[in-house]
């Protein structure tokens, strides 16, 4: 069967885009709305990859499902768009089967913390060597703005028409108490700091988590009357306070309240492969 013309047709890339090496130019324009924070985070990610000075041939990216879940599809690495919430589990298989690879999981708050919450805490506990970038837009965006386990109390969503009644997860606290070795939070406008964090975490052995507070200019913004994407991005940025090393217990986010950002956790712990190899060399010795 001949490939359909429509499918074969490429959208011709612009001549030399500064991120030509890292973005799949043949997939642009992307699906994200104007003013969405995901694009900014991807820009920081591309810069962070560059800055980290790692072998991109040996680096792969895995996403789950959602607006953020589409990130893997735009990044010119070996890239996997998997199932809702299971990106970390998929990435665990990759990392354990080939420990020489660098593995990044880039996904949304609903994906990673709700349906994928169990994989998140277990990968952190095992300290599987990977970087997880979580775009927290306080909502299930792709499905049209339903309440998420990260929606601040009293915030509106299509499935919390009287304001959210469930307390949200504090993602850095969850990551920290589950065993992550590197935990940071930035907003989508902290592009330079986010870039540095990504570069740093990419060279950190173990399970690293970077939360990016990011506007959903389409759903979270509209239902809560928060203005356009840029207004929200500025609000998050201007209402943030950098407190490196802050106890992760103190990082709750309320509806339109102050957001504490910074690097909260940076510690050493044996990674899953360290422990596995130790067990393995013990077994091999015992055999002899």
């Amino acid at each position, binding site marked *: *069967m001949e*490939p*359909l013309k*429509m*499918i*074969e047709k490429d959208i011709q890339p612009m001549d030399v885009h500064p991120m030509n090496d890292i973005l*799949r130019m*043949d*997939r642009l324009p992307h699906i994200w709305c104007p003013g969405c924070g995901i694009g900014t985070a991807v820009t920081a990610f591309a810069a962070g990859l560059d800055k980290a000075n790692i072998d991109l*041939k*040996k680096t*792969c990216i*895995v996403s789950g499902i959602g607006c953020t879940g589409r990130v*893997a*599809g735009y990044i*010119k*690495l*070996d*890239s*996997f*768009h*998997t*199932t809702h919430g*299971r990106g970390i*589990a*998929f*990435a*665990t*298989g*990759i990392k*354990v*089967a*080939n420990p*020489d*690879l660098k593995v990044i999981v880039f996904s949304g708050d609903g994906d990673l913390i709700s349906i994928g919450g*169990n*994989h998140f805490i*277990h990968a952190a506990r095992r300290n599987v060597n990977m970087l997880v970038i979580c775009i927290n837009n306080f909502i299930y965006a792709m499905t049209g703005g339903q309440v998420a386990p990260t929606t601040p109390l009293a915030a509106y969503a299509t499935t919390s028409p009287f304001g959210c009644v469930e307390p949200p997860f504090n993602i850095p606290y969850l990551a920290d108490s589950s065993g992550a070795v590197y935990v940071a939070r930035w907003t989508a406008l902290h592009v330079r700091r986010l870039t540095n964090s990504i570069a740093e975490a990419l060279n950190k052995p173990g399970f690293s988590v970077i939360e990016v507070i990011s506007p959903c200019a389409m759903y979270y913004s509209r239902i809560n009357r928060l203005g356009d994407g840029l207004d929200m991005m500025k609000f998050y940025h201007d209402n943030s306070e950098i407190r490196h090393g802050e106890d992760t217990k103190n990082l709750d986010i309320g509806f339109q309240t102050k957001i504490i950002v910074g690097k909260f956790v940076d510690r050493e712990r044996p990674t*899953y492969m360290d422990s*596995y190899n130790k067990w*393995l060399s013990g*077994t*091999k010795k015992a*055999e002899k």
Partner: protein
Amino acid sequence: MKTNLKAVLTGTHTLSGNEACIEGAFAAGCLFLAAYPIMPAIETIERYLKRSAEVGATFIQMEDEISALAAVIGASWTGKKSMTATSGPGFSNMMEHLGLGVMLETPCVIIDVQRTGPSLGIPNRAGQADMMQARWGSHGDYEVITLAPGSPQEMFDFTIKAFNFSEKYRTPVIVISDEYIAHKKEKVVIPPADGIKITPRRYFKGQKDKYLPFKRDKDFVPRMVDIGDGFKFHVTGLTHDDKGYPIMLEECQEYNVHPILWKIRNHVDEIVEFQETGTVDAEIVIVYYGATSEAAIKAMKQAKDMGIKVGGLKLDVVWPFPDKKIAELAEKVKAFVVPEINYGQIVSEVERCSYGNANVIFVSHGEKGINNTDDIVSAIKLALKEKERKKGIIEYRSQAGSS
């Protein structure tokens, strides 16, 4: 691929079905297992761990079966042959990623050691009620190759075949056994490594920037590459084009998904395997698989001793189903007798493929579990007595008081 000699335990051993399964996997070149513990599949994990260090194979116990199969699919893309093993409740959890494996066209092997169900059922009793789940359990259109071993030796042999099919057709393959075979210990002969046929992964050999992860060869099977080899490829569970880019159009649904079915459907004759005994002049043919094999073979012998012309068709591969073979036999025989440890699954396929040309008698395990030889013999007699061609499935029922 260089054969790892430690992986092939050449010789004659006494192994349980679960142990033989893992030896088959190692002989086939499996180097990754992710699983979540469950009865009666647990001895697969134990055997794997016991041997993994010397074989150089990696293991991870995941947090559930959803993540186990996700990890297996991820691992497979690193170039390692990968597998998982589970039983009913875990098999249900795996349906999500059976679909992902099909859509990403990722070779991997899933062992389902059937217990009874629904839900938790009896963890340490054999069942055969996941047969249709294997075929239809994940949403969407797909074909899945499923092998049904009937002894520890077949556990070994069929697990190798499963890996070979998965590489040849770039698809998940299921080995569906059951508690009885899993725990039965029997002689298993493992041939020398060079006597075992292994299908290597079909790699793309072209230029780095020319790789299309879903561009099909003439046989509809696309080629693979490994993560880290510099191809910078993309794959998605969304409907996609040859590049692996999502395209949300019906034309692409057809372009993408129909060939995933064709790659199996067009090769049914190469995939389907069965063992035929005495069908040439048979009036009645017993169609059986897996744990019912023993009872069926005994019943066949008893009926023959009574002078009945009875033959047997043992299904080694259940999916794709041997439609042609059943249709061909249906034109010659009076009836099929189909024993199963369930309340009617494969029997409906036999009835479908008979096109009304033969009666189809179903023998459920009833209270006797797998030891239903007497019932099978009685069903054969019933089949002989029946003068009319009956529509639909005739369910054999034990005489009141006899069971």
